C-alpha cells in the first residue's frame, strides 16, 4: 500500500473537527454532507481526504466507534443487548449484529459471555493474592504483625482510586 499523500495541515485540522464530532456523538447520524459541512469541503473531497488522513472512510470510522462503545457497554454493564444496539446508534438489531461480528469477529452475546467469564477469573487473582498475604508468617512478633496490618489498612483507606 502506498503512503497517503502529504495533506494540507489546515485541511487536516478541519477534518479533525469532523472526527471529533463523530467521537462526541457516535450514536447520531453522520451523513457525509453533514461532516463535509463541518470540515468546509465538498462531499467528494471530504470522503477521500478523511480516509487519507485517518486511514478509514468516514462511515467505517463511525461504525468502528459505535462498536467500541457497544463493546464497553457489553463488558461493563448489564444493559440488554437490544438496548445497547439502539443506544449506540443502530435502527435494527440485524445490522448491529452483522456489523458487530464483521468488526470484532464474534457476536455481541458471545463477547459479553467471554468478557464476563474473564472478569470472574480476574476476581480470583486478588483472592489468591490475599490468601498468600495472610498466610501466617511467624518470623515477626504477632504484635508487630498486627501493627503492620493496621498501617496497611490505613494506607489503603488513604490511597486514591485512580
Amino acid at each position, binding site marked *: 500500500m502506498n503512503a497517503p499523500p*502529504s495533506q494540507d*495541515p489546515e485541511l*487536516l*485540522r478541519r477534518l*479533525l473537527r469532523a*472526527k471529533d464530532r463523530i467521537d462526541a456523538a457516535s450514536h447520531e447520524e453522520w451523513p457525509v454532507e453533514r461532516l463535509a459541512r463541518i470540515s468546509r469541503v465538498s462531499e467528494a473531497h471530504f470522503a477521500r481526504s478523511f480516509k487519507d488522513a*485517518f486511514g478509514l472512510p468516514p462511515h467505517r470510522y463511525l461504525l468502528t466507534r459505535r462498536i467500541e462503545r457497544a463493546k464497553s457497554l457489553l463488558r461493563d454493564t448489564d444493559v440488554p443487548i437490544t438496548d445497547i444496539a439502539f443506544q449506540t446508534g443502530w435502527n435494527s438489531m440485524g445490522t448491529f449484529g452483522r456489523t458487530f461480528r464483521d468488526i470484532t469477529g464474534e457476536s455481541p452475546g458471545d463477547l459479553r459471555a467471554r468478557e464476563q467469564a474473564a472478569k470472574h477469573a480476574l476476581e480470583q487473582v486478588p483472592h489468591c493474592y490475599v490468601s498468600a498475604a495472610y498466610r501466617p508468617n511467624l518470623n515477626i512478633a504477632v504484635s508487630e504483625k498486627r501493627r503492620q496490618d493496621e498501617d496497611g489498612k490505613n494506607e489503603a483507606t488513604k490511597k*486514591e*482510586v*485512580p
Partner: protein
Amino acid sequence: MSQGVGVVGLYVRDQEEALQFYVGKLGFRVHTDAKNGDYRWLTVQHPEQPSFQLGLYTPGPPMLDAATAQTLREIVAKGAMPPLVLVVEDCRVAYEQMRARGVEFTQEPVSRYGSVDASFRDPSGNGWKMIEARGAK
C-alpha cells in the same frame, strides 16, 4: 524546587495564534519570548505553577528539515500528538468560562471515576483533557 522537569514543549502551527490561545483564553502567562532570526523560543506558564513552563514551538529550521516539519504539522493537525491534562478546581465553571472565550471543546463536562472531566483542543489540534482536582470542592 530546584530539580525536575522545567519545560515540556508542544508543536503549534503558529506561535502568535498559540500565544493568543494559551494566554488570552486559558489564562497562562508568558515566561520567555526570545527571537533569534526566524527562530522563536516561546514558553508560557500556568499562573499557579511557577516551576513549569509549556513551550510553544513551530516545527521547522534550524532544528528540522522541510519534509520533517511538514510531517509534524500534519500529525499535529490530525490530533495525533500525545494527550495533555489540565487540572482545574471546578471543571464545569472552567468549561463555561473557556467556552465563552471561544475555546473549542470536544467533550462537555462528564462526571465519572469520582471526578469531572471535559476535553478541548488548541487551534493547532493538540488535545487537552481538563480534569477537576479531587477533593477540590
